[in-house]
């Protein structure tokens, strides 16, 4: 069992399918280009399932979670290579002035072909079978991982206020309990 949280690996990641969906229609004809409405309308006639042709790409990803048992899946972020950023943008990312792009220190991510940033809004769900776990490309330290989690929550507007409040209430309750 691997513990991939905070680590970077090569993975095979599909792009999210978007309309027009290319639906496989056998070897004799080209795929059908179908809209969301057409597929939803077809669903009203039963429970049909189709094979959509989805582009996939091998890319490094930063894994945010441990394996979600029993599904053997993780949440991960896509990365942005520095060669696609201007010199000024690179510097802003290195100085953590871009909240949505988390800088991956080259020294800690020596397995990556070049300097990268994790795109905190670009979440993907990846089955562990699609991750090349035999070779780790780098790892975040605990503090960096906390910051990335915080930024992912902020980027996606996750409502964690009640969770934090409940944790605080439990902590207060424990502190108020008489000691041994």
């Amino acid at each position: 069992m691997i513990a991939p949280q905070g680590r970077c690996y090569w993975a095979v990641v599909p792009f999210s399918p978007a309309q027009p969906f290319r639906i496989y229609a056998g070897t004799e004809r080209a795929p059908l280009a179908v809209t969301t409405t057409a597929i939803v309308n077809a669903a009203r006639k039963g429970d049909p399932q189709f094979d959509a042709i989805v582009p996939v790409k091998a890319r490094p990803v930063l894994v945010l979670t441990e394996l979600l048992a029993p599904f053997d899946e993780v949440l991960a972020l896509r990365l942005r290579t520095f060669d696609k950023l201007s010199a000024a943008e690179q510097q802003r990312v290195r100085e953590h002035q871009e909240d949505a792009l988390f800088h991956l220190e080259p020294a800690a991510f020596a397995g990556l072909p070049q300097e990268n940033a994790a795109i905190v809004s670009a979440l993907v769900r990846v089955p562990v079978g699609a991750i090349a776990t035999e070779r780790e490309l780098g790892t975040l330290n605990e503090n960096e991982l906390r910051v990335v989690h915080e930024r992912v929550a902020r980027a996606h507007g996750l409502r964690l206020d009640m969770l934090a409040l409940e944790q605080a209430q439990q902590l207060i309750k424990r502190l108020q309990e008489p000691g041994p």
Partner: protein
Amino acid sequence: MDTVRIPGDRVRVPNLRPGTAAAVHRYDKERAFMLHPDDFHRLTALEELAAAALAISPIEFSEVAVEAHRDESTPGQSIIDPDELLALFGE
């Protein structure tokens, strides 16, 4: 917290002073609590204050962040040439 309004003639409510809660028990289990209105409003205001203090501020996406997300989430040209695919993956 949602509040359910119940007419006063539908339930028997004890006289409660501020700072005192009445716990309604049944078979040793807590069923409900009744509070003086001042306490209820103070507690709900505190809860709202805590929730507001703990709410996370959204990230503002710069142009470079938006472009990075869009570009890395948009497929480029896929390889579909059979000879090229065979050269990459073999038989």
